[in-house]
């Protein structure tokens, strides 16, 4: 005979503001099988949980229904409480009367009735629950890190230093990401390359890290602890094992006018190239889209020159199968280019550049060796206008969010310019100065007060070119919107940071959710900032939202800590919500007829055949067998089974029917 306890939570006022909780408790007490019913302000709190534990012991409960928030929020909490009181945790169910009721309805009798109806269905379900034991699955202690920017590098090194294997997958020919392109970093003005390149080398030399460059994720299946990933390693046309990185090939390549991605188009590269001198790995690749041999079938100069015979024009893409227990996404961000801005000339003015281009101009390893010269004629600009919030915080441009890094790097740009061109004048147009961070505000103040950057609060309406000058027209909103016109020599747009091209398809491959701007979504904005909604997949850096270097590194170390935490277990405990083929005594053994339909439709390849044999080892019957380690509890086989021989534990047909009947038999 069922002895059910019902616990109605007020959730502060979240539920009780629209639902009469005492009334629901009173009605629930009258349901057949319910021996105890109560309501409380915060059921999830310690005293709330104690109420449940006490009731289990005092009333000898055989089942518990907690009517509160979504089970996504607190099911583990209440199941744990039940287990502590000696009740099998799977005999505890939650009725969601918050998200499904109190939050979406007005206060009134109908809302209270709905809360009761939801409670009632779960009471009927829980009567048919039976104790379940959680499932143990092994953990593969290899992590895949996708993206080799500073976040991916940090996550890889942390996990590898924790003693685990790491596979680092990078789309470009070199790791380093955007940070390798930067000149100096805020707020200390230390050289970006100087702090990053040693870490890049560490990655390359670490015995626990396997690096795949020019590589992307092809597909992924499996689950936490047991992911199967296919990596597409694109043909580099250079045999890495034979190549010594001497660089002879790059000196004689006849195609020399390809805009360099690393230099943001401010310099050219050859078709066989190393993206930058400090690249890791420091071995060239052939850009087939621009290579003369691949375009015309003639050339092969590099092959003739190569002393080790490493050039391989026939090389094909390689698919590498790897198994991993965890995945860290660190694919970073991109910035909008100047052609995104009609009002700033649709990208047609050479001296209107983006922030990354300015980084290259200011970088000692850049196309001008760190001298600030404008791209059109190489002259040193006397007046430079920096425009913050170019595209960011602009709903009309489809980017309502703040790109976060621009206030700081614009102050840095103004400073660097002033340090290199003493007689020059930097102007900065801004909306607000957002300099929250350690030593950040001091940094922007320094740009204004010590380096004399002229900050103008206001927007720039348009830019046009006249007599070799760029006329920047804007408004000074601190002076009541007074029009401002500056005849600048160069303009730097702090263009909006956006998600990477291809992040949407990657998210879909990995079953990770993403926001409207295609940034990957964290599981909880405050309490689970580096987790995704898919267990075992973590986030690091700016693929989640615009982040600066310290934040990206912190998130990467956070994600690495999560991975190491996961890898500290040899086995994982999984919810026993899996499908099961029924078994019964001989001579029937099971109602399964062995049609194998379920085997063919299982999306997780979790079903196999099982032979039932007699004592002599002769096969009497062949039936389906579900591997609980692989089964994800999707229920597809349950729906397909012709003989109704499969049921889903925790969601059996009987349980679901009883829920539906409870609603119908009002």
């Amino acid at each position: 005979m069922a002895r059910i306890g019902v616990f109605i939570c007020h959730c502060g006022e979240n539920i009780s503001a629209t639902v009469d909780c005492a009334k629901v408790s009173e009605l629930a007490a009258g349901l057949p099988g319910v021996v105890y019913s109560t309501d409380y302000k915060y059921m999830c709190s310690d005293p709330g949980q104690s109420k449940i534990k006490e009731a289990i012991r005092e009333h000898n409960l055989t089942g518990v229904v907690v009517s509160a928030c979504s089970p996504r929020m607190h099911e583990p909490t209440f199941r744990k409480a039940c287990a502590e009181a000696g009740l099998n945790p799977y005999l505890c169910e939650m009725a969601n009367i918050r998200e499904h009721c109190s939050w979406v309805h007005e206060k009134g009798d109908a809302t209270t009735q709905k809360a009761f109806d939801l409670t009632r269905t779960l009471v009927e379900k829980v009567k048919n629950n039976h104790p379940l034991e959680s499932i143990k699955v092994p953990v593969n202690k290899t992590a895949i890190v996708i993206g080799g920017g500073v976040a991916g590098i940090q996550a890889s090194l942390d996990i590898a230093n924790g003693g685990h294997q790491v596979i680092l997958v990078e789309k470009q020919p070199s790791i380093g990401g955007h940070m390798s392109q930067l000149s100096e970093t805020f707020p200390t003005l230390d050289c970006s390359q100087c702090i990053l390149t040693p870490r890049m080398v560490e990655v390359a030399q670490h015995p626990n890290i396997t690096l795949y460059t020019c590589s992307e994720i092809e597909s992924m299946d499996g689950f936490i602890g047991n992911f199967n990933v296919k990596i597409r390693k694109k043909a580099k046309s250079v045999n890495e094992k034979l190549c010594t990185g001497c660089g002879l090939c790059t000196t004689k390549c006849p195609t020399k006018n390809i805009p360099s991605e690393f230099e943001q188009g401010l310099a050219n590269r050859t078709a066989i190239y190393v993206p930058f001198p400090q690249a890791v790995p420091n071995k060239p690749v052939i850009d087939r889209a621009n290579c003369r041999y691949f375009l015309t079938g003639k050339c092969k100069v590099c092959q003739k020159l190569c002393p080790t015979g490493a050039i391989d024009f026939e090389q094909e893409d390689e698919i590498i199968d790897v198994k991993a227990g965890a995945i860290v996404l660190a694919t970073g961000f991109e910035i909008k280019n100047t052609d995104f801005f009609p009002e700033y000339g649709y990208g047609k003015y050479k001296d209107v550049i983006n922030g990354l281009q300015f980084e290259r101009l200011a970088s000692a390893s850049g196309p001008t060796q760190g001298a600030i010269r404008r791209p059109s004629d190489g002259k040193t600009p006397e007046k430079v206008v920096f425009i913050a919030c170019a595209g960011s915080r602009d709903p009309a441009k489809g980017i309502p969010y703040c790109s976060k890094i621009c206030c700081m790097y614009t102050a840095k740009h103004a400073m660097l310019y002033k340090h290199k061109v003493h007689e020059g004048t930097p102007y900065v147009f801004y909306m607000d100065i957002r300099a929250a961070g350690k030593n950040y505000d001091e940094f922007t103040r320094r740009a204004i007060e010590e380096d004399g950057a002229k900050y103008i609060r206001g927007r720039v309406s348009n830019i046009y070119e006249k007599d070799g000058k760029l006329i920047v027209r804007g408004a000074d909103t601190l002076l009541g919107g007074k029009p401002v016109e500056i005849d600048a020599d160069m303009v730097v747009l702090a263009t909006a940071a956006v998600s990477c091209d291809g992040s949407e398809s990657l998210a879909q491959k990995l079953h990770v959710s993403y926001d409207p701007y295609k940034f990957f979504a964290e599981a909880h904005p405050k309490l689970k900032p580096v987790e995704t909604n898919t267990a075992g997949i973590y986030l690091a850096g700016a693929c989640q939202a615009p982040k600066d270097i310290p934040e990206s590194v912190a998130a990467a170390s956070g994600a690495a800590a999560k991975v190491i935490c996961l890898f500290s277990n040899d086995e994982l405990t999984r919810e026993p919500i899996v499908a099961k083929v029924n078994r019964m005594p001989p001579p029937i053994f099971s109602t399964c007829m062995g049609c194998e339909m379920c085997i063919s439709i299982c999306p997780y390849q979790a079903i196999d055949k099982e032979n039932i044999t007699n004592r002599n080892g002769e096969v009497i019957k062949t039936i389906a067998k579900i591997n609980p380690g692989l089964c994800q509890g999707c229920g597809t086989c349950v729906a397909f089974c012709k003989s109704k021989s499969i049921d889903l534990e925790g969601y059996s047909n009987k349980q679901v029917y009883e829920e539906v009947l409870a609603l119908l038999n009002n």
Partner: protein
Amino acid sequence: MTKLGFYPGCSLEGTAREYNESVMSLATLFDIQLEQVPDWNCCGATAAHNLNKILSLSLPARILAQAEKAGMKEIIVPCAACYSRLSVTQHELFENSELKKQVEEVMDMTLSSPIRILNVVQFIQEFILPHLSEKIVKPFDKEVACYYGCLLVRPHDILQFDRLEDPQTIDRIMEQLGAKPIDWPFKTECCGAGLSVSRTDLVAKLSGKIVKEATERGAKAIITACPMCHANLDMRRSAINSYLAKKYDVPVLYITQAIGMACGLNNKQTGIYRHLVKVNN
């Protein structure tokens, strides 16, 4: 003969008579019959939408309803202000059924489906351009500054016509006439619009910038498609010149006049004799 609906609006009967004359002459030349919307009324233009939203929607809505009643599938609206008011109204009413109902009650007429509202540039693109080359007798062989003003391309979300900044359509049409459109930054710069009467000093300043820039970049004519722009750049030229303390004599032509001149229409047909800044053909 192609028959098209036509809404002239007040300007084309008053300060922009020459615009009307040139549109009509072009239509005749290209065998098009422009049929006026019966019993048309004021579009509300600059005044109404500052005073009363329902009035500002009802005035253009009645024009649309009249056009629909007359069985017109499209109407040609040469005045950029009228074009803007009619387009915005049609967009707002068909997006918001509540508002549409309210407006229909006010005007005691109904609107069943949207009609095509074409500005003069779209009209030229669609009905004149395909036959233009055969009619050109005297190529417009000059540097020109194509000036679009604000109302032809804005609000972009609704009009979906040309680029918001640095529009191109008039430039391309002028190229077909043999002209050399200059690359200049003030294509959509404010001319001062309705301040022409109340704040002539501001118009002199704003329009002055446009005239000066066009002249300095070598334009021999400014090409426009809006009566308001034309009035400010042409009619207010003496105010402009005294503000700039220099005599600027670059003429301002409606695009229809430029096409008419290239196609050999006489001054009476194009109406250029009515301009205050003299046009030498």
